[in-house]
Structure formats: C-alpha cells, structure tokens
C-alpha cells in the first residue's frame, strides 16, 4: 500500500470539494473493496476522503418511493422492515452477497462502486485493459470461467460482481448523485456501463461526483419474487450466474414482470425481451422456457465459460418457477 493522506469531511460539499482538488483521491466508506485494491497496487490514491461522517445513512419513505442513503450498510438494508415488506427481492439479493462480516461494513454506494473481481484486473503483473488501458485483456485468452457472456467487448469480458445491484436494476431504481454542479438522477440501469472501448470506466459517475442515495419506486412485487444465486460454494462466493425475478400474477396471468441477471455481464443484466414475452402470459413452464430461450440468445462464450449459457437458461426457468409458485 502506498502512503496516502486522509481527510474526513463532515459535509457533502466539503467532500466534493476535497475530491475536486485532488484527482488521485478516492472516496472511502466501508472500504471492503478499496482496501483490497490498494493493497494489491491496483488503485494508488494519494488521498482518501472518508465520507462516513456524511448524513447519508437514512432509509425513509418519500410518498410511495423508498429512499436509501448511500451510506446505509448492506446488512442494515437487508434487515430493514420497509425493505423486507415492500422490496423483498432486494433483501434476498443483499443476503446472497459476500459474508455477514462484509455486509456489516459495506455500504449501498460502495456496493455499486465495487470493481470487478476479474483476476487479471487484480494482478498488476498480468495484462488488463480495465486497470491499464491498451495493455490487453488477460481473460480473453486466459482463464475465463467466471467471465461475461453478454455485452462484452474485445477489450474486456469482466463481470460486475454485485448481487444488490441486480435486484436494484430489476426494481427500476434511480441513483441520486451530487457533484460540483449540483445533483442529478441516473436510472439504475444506466448507471453501470458496458466495457466497449473504455473498459476502465465501470459506470457513468463523473470523477468528482458522489452517490448520495438510491430510490426505489413503488411496485407490486411483494410475493412472487426470487433471487437465485448459483455459486461454487454455499456462501461467500461470487455468482456463476444469478437471476432476480419479480412478478405480479393475477388470474393466472403475469401482469407485470422484471428479470435481471448477475455474473453474466459488465453490468447488472436486465432481460427486457424476456419480460415482454412473459407479460400478459400464463406462468407456465412452457412460457418460462420460451423466455429463457429469448434471454440467452446472443450469448457469447469463451474457452471456460461455455457452461454459463446453459446455466443461465436453466437458472432463469428455475427462478421464474420459484417466483411464480412463491
């Protein structure tokens, strides 16, 4: 770890100002990912701006919208009564992520900002376009069992590791950010980016902007939900494939449905075509199979992750069935 200075501003403005003055600086909240990156020499900030003093820890109801402060801990969010009753999908996804100890430290904003777990990104003696643009992608010709099957590019096939973000993408959340020019709102599904030619950019947050909150609009998904995470060990493992499903069923017809996947792309992967195919249809195995077929069309696999297409196909159906019968 390199030497760095440390500041702890106590206002949002002071935090943003501190960032504006020093472009190698990084905000730190729980530090569950940033400290790893610093220890591995992947990120070498000369200044850490500790934002834990900022008043961003609130979970509150704004009309029908749930407002979640960026510093709310993952464990607190998962256990919150409003989340458990109104957005159980989010609670399930959070509890599928990391370990209890990490969830006790990790914040909502930090979860969104976590970097990929691609090994080539973390090992500074191997090539990685995300860490060092134009050095090449180590994963494409290397070990890529955990890597993307959707939306990747020739520059990067890394996946976003979050479970929470998959649920937030499915629930049409909105990200609130603050910067020198004031506040702005970003639809959650537009927050993270695909790698394209700029894999070094994980998201559309400007350098000196700070996430302040996430908002979830009202929706009817309290019963028929499922977060299915398929992984190599039962806990504390990243998803091979995960599927978030939320649906509203009445009179044996799917009135409204959201499906998103994790572990398959550089961002939480919404499945709009599969959602469309199921809207207005009966929740049957045949329809779910059709949706899974649609969802996995266009998957591109590499030397070691070919199984992910089949796993996604099966997992989507499994999650849909689980949600429908919940």
């Amino acid at each position, binding site marked *: 770890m390199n030497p760095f200075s440390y500041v702890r501003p106590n206002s949002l403005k002071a935090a943003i100002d501190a960032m504006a003055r020093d472009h190698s600086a990084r905000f730190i909240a729980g530090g569950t990912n940033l400290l790893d990156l610093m220890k591995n020499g992947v990120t070498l900030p000369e200044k850490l701006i500790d934002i834990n003093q900022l008043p961003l820890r609130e979970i509150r109801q704004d009309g029908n919208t749930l407002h979640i402060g960026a510093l709310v801990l993952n464990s607190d969010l998962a256990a919150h009564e409003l989340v458990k009753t109104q957005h159980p999908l989010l609670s399930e996804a959070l509890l599928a992520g990391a370990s209890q100890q990490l969830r006790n430290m990790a914040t909502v904003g930090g979860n969104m900002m976590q970097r990929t777990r691609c090994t080539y990104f973390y090992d500074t003696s191997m090539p990685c376009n995300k860490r060092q643009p134009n050095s090449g992608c180590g994963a494409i*010709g290397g070990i890529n069992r955990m890597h993307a099957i959707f939306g990747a590019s020739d520059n990067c096939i890394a996946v976003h590791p979050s479970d929470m973000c998959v649920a937030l993408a499915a629930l049409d959340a909105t990200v609130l950010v603050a910067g020198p020019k004031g506040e702005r709102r970003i639809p959650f599904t537009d927050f993270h980016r695909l790698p394209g030619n700029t894999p070094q950019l994980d998201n559309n947050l400007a350098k000196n902007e700070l996430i302040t909150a996430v908002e979830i609009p009202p929706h009817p998904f309290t019963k028929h939900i499922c977060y*299915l995470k398929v992984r190599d060990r039962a806990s504390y493992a990243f998803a*091979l494939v995960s599927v978030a499903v939320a649906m509203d069923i009445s009179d044996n017809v799917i009135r409204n449905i959201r499906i998103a996947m994790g572990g398959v792309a550089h961002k939480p992967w919404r499945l709009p075509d599969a959602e469309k195919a199921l809207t207005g249809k009966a929740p049957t195995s045949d329809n779910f199979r059709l949706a899974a077929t649609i969802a996995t069309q266009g998957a591109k696999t590499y030397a070691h992750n070919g199984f992910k297409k089949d796993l996604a196909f099966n997992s989507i159906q499994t999650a849909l069935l689980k949600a429908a019968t919940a």
Partner: protein
Amino acid sequence: MKKPQTGQPMDRVDGRLKVTGGAKYFADHQPADMQFAALVCSTISCGAIASISTTKALRAPGVADVVSHLNAPPVPGYKKTNPGDKNGLQIFRDNRIYSNGQPVAIVVANTMERAVYAASLVEVQYNQETHYTNMEAGMDKAFQNNRMKDYSRGEINAWQKAPVTHSAQYTIPLEVHNPMELAGIIAHWTSPDTLTLYAKTQGVKSVQETIQELFEIPEQNITVHSRFVGGAFGMALRVWPLEIATILAAKKIRKPVKLVITREQMFTLVGYRPNSSQKISMGATADGKLTGITHEAVAITSPYEDFTEGIVAMTKFMYDCPNVNTRYQLVPLNMSTPIWMRGPGEATGSFALESAIDELSYKLKIDPLQLRILNHADTDPERNLPFSSKYLKEAYQIGAEKIGWSSRNPAPRSMQENGMLVGYGMSSGTFGAYRGKATVSAILKSDGTLTLQSAAADIGPGTATAMVQIAADVTGISPDKITFMLGESTFPYAPEQGGSATVSTVGSAVSDVCHALLKELANLAISQVPAFKQTTPELIIYEDGQLITADRQTKITHEALLQQQKLPEVKVTATSQGGEERKKYSMYSFSVHFAKVHVHPATGVVRIQHIVSVADAGAIVNTKTARSQMIGGVVGGIGMALTEEAILDHRFGRFVNNNYADYHVPVNADTPPTDVYFVNKKDPYINPMGSKGLGEIALIGFAAAVSNAVFHATGIRVRDLPITPDKLLHIVSTENATA
C-alpha cells in the same frame, strides 16, 4: 479402580488460552527492536534475474535494507552442493528463477507497512526463458524417482483378462493448505553464531536440524520456539526459503526480523497438494471377486526437488486381490515444491481407487459396500503379514446403519426429495499407523504437580490434552496437576507432527516416562520410608498422587515423599520407540465415509446433507478432540470434493485465484451435520495406549464418498475434482427445470 482419563472427552487444556487470545503464536512475539520484512517475489516463471534496482526502496521511510542474492550473507551449507543439484531452492544463492512467486529479495523496515510499501518499489529486471507449468503438456518429461519404484504382485495387468472390467482416468487439481495462520518467522541473531527463532512449524527439532546444517553453528546455539500453531495441514513440515531469507536478513542488519507472508504468497512459498492424474484399471469375476488392479499415477514436482508421497500406497493392500501393479511418475514443472497436505498421497490415491471400486460395483450390479466386504483383505496382501488390528468391517456396519444405507434405492438417479436429486455414496480410507521415536522428561515437583516436556508440536489436534490424559492414567495424578509442555527445541527430541503419529509416538514416551517416574518414586519410598521397606515397585498402588502399599495400610503423597527427602523435584527422562512388533504386524488405521447429497437438477449445485464417518483408529484417547479432528478432516474432504482448486494461467505460470475469496475452502454453509463414530477398540501391538493415528484417515477417501453419492444422485460420474456445478450441468437435463 478409578475411571481412566483416556477415552474421556476432556476439554482442551489450552482451549481457554486459544479462545481468549492468551495463546501466543509466532507472530505475537516481539523481541526488542524487532524489524519487519516483506518479500519481493518473481513475476516470471523461468529465467534469471538481470538486475535489481533498490534505489527507490532504500530511500523510502524506515527502510533498513534490501537483501537479495547480490548482497545476502553467505549460507555455509550451500557450499556442500553444486548449483543445479536437486537440493531444494537455495534462496539468494544465485540469480536463477525456477518458478513464479519465488522470492528474489527481502525488504526490511521499521514497520510492516513501510516494508510492504518499500517492497513495491524494488524494480527487478529478468531475462525470461520458456517455462512449463502444464502437467498434461509435460507428460513426455515424466520420470520415476528411486523412492517410488514400480510395484507388482502376481501377474501384471491381469485385470485385462477379467470378465468384468473398469478402467478410467481420475484427476485432482492443485490444492493449497491455506491454514488461517499465515506462514512466517521471527529470526533473532543474539550473537554472530547464536540464533533464536519464533517459528510456525510442525517440528521445532527439524527446524533446528535444518538451520544447523545450513549455517554450521552448534545445535545448542539454535533455539526454536513454536508453542502454538494456527493450523498447518502439512505446510509447516519443513523449513522453507522464506524462513532462510528472513534469517539472512536478520543476520545482515543485526536486528530481530519478523516476516509474515501474504495469502497470495501462501500459494507459491509453502507447498501444496500436487495436481495429479491417475489411471485405475480393475477386473473382477462376475460374482465380484477382484482379480487384478493396475494403478498408474502422475503428479507434479518442482525443478529442484522430487516430491513423492503415497499416491499408490493404498491400492497395494486395501483389497484382497492376487494381481496388483502400480507405477508412480513425476513431472517436473516451473513450480515450487509440493508438500504433504493432510491425508497426503493416500487422499489423492483413495479418490481414484474408491471411485473405481464404486464404478465397478455398478458394472457388476453388486452393492458397492458389499463389493468392498467381498474383497476385504483379512491379512495384508502386500507384506503378507497379519494386521495388528483391523475393524474395518465393524466400521462399514456402523456407517451403513447410521446413514440408512439399506433404505437407498441402488439405481442411479432414482431418488428425489423436494425437487432435489438424492444420492448416497460411501468409500473407505486407510493410512499407516506409525510410531516413531520420542523422548519426554517428567518433572515431579514437591507441590505434587507433574510437568512433562517434549519438543512435540500441536497444530490443532489437542496434543497436550491427550498427553495429560495418558500421564494421568499411568501416574494416578489428577489431570489438573499435570502440564504437558511442547514446541520448544530445548525440550527432549520429538519428531514433527505429521503422518498421524503424535499420540502413538509421543504418547508412548509419555507413558514410558511416567512408568519410569513411578519406579523412581517407589525406589525412593522403599529406601527411605519404613512402611515401604518390604515392598517392591510392582506391588505399590499408585493413586491420586499417592503411593499406597499393597495392603492399603500405608499411604504417602508425592508431596510428602519429596518434602521428607527435601527434594524440590524428581526428574526422569525416557526415550521410547516401536520394536519388533512392527516387523510382525502390518499397522494401519481405517476409515469409512458415508455421504448423502442433494443435487439441484437444473443448476448442478451439490449440497451435502448428511455425513457419517467412522474410524478404526484403535483406542481413542480423547473422544472430544478426536471427534473434532474427524470433523476437521471431513471439512477438508468437502473442499477436495466440491470446491478446492488452485488455477494457473499457464501463459504466465501465475495463479489466478490465490486468495480466500476465489480459492474456495468450505464455509459453514457447505458443512452439514457430521456424525462421527469410533470403533474404539485397542490395537494390542502398536503402543501402550493401543491407539492408532486419526488425522489423515479423517480425510482419506472422503472425496470419493461424495463423488460416488453424486453419481448415485445423477447418473453422472465426475472423475475430475472438484465437482463444481458446471461439471454436472452439461449432462443434467435441460428439459426439466424444477424449482
């Protein structure tokens, strides 16, 4: 007669220290003016160091020195060998790089953070050469080490002529011990030829011996402390280059130096279970009598050492089969040297053998348990000797009953529960029941307390607790008055804690020294206490810290006896080792593992639901710590079966999952209820306690039980560990997704 202490579930004597932070592990020691070290490790896999630039590192705050082959103090012991001889990695001897992650320099600073930072500033240039890290691609370099020659009895490849045959290849990836406690050492030269070490080791005496050979200083000038070890599983069975590097750095800067390596470095600096490929072929008569087994194994080693272990050992004697031949070859790669990892080679070999037996049983349409019983070896077919004790059949019976073996439908993929495919599998394991040589001192003080000392180790099984129980039974002294001290090189000799032999080896010496102590006390009483004048040591009763005459009319406490004679203490030392009985009998421990698994039919995820493991390990000294040891071995086995695999990118020769997040050791959620049973019958020959070893058999065979259960659940045979979801997915039907 008092209830014996051995066989009781006594609490660990050091349990409180361990859970309250009172136990001092090597890294907890702080000699005055201690400095901190960090390693700079190679990022190439083969070649030579062209240059090392230390300018920036030396300018960093708090840095004392950067030590490498360019400026390290000489190691006198290196001179006995030529560079390039297979004598291990002689750290800092020259500029050769044999494997990725090899230490090229050690940076010393006044804080750990500063050392780590300065290490990142050391710039190393290499002349890179072509490296080889892929075993499959290196099969043409396979060779045989003289320690492991071909074995055969009867006819070679007789299996081919059998009416029913099975032949298949089984592969196990490289696995890393990954104990919680990281490796490292504190080295302190208190004079130019006097060295104190705080080490993480399974044997302080072997550390002392290695250092003596390398540095050519008198044995008594080397003091090694290692009272507590935070897990090792075999990785601390030798001195590694990282420890020599630290000793050299301490010598150069003339201050104590502490090194604790990183989790990433645990993958390249302290050994591993070598990846292996095994072909097992077997044949049987139609009614299930084995007629031939051929076992051919290949495993990797480093360029500078031949590491061998018992991969093909079990095949030679486990079953009553007239024709057996084995071959074991090594492929040298640009990798560091492997080391025994719990169960070692036998765990590797048993996966192949016990999977193959299961596969054959389906071809024969005979229950796999019945097939094993049908071919049970009543005597050792390899050495033509009787077993000292063997209760494997009892173990099979206990395990089968407890798991409910008879209620399983034997047809593969025939059982379901809550939408999950259900499978039951079983296997057996065995490991040599050893007894080495050890010396123990017993010091009885005039306050009636007994202290036992031996340079043994405790990497977790509860060594001191077992020793106290053994001593209590022999001496009749209450366990709370007995202390067993270990982990100091100044104590009398004991071998490393490895190969499941500590209770057998050190426990025998404890037993012997305690008998010698009683004799000493008896003689004291006979010569000095009038009431005892007419008796002999054999007639005296030893109970509750007292000597009692045979007629029970006169008693004298140990305290009184010593105080009467104004003796502050009585000290006795005894050395113990096995004798002729080891030539007359074949001595092995046996285990049986049963597993019930659920396999998700759509995702291929395997979850073990229930485990029953049964050990025939002779008399159990402590049923509580023994049970814990069995569970620990089983957890290791779950990792081997389902999750553990260190993955290399052969283009670079670097590991891609060298951390706890990506190298999956099982977590609690992977670990189902595990029922442990002991046959618990004394071995009449092995040692005074009648106890055989336990540590290895807890794991040996386990992975096959899981793999066999997965086959029973799914009809899919996975011969390539670990059994991750992707390996079941492509055959699991994509037609019938279920919730």
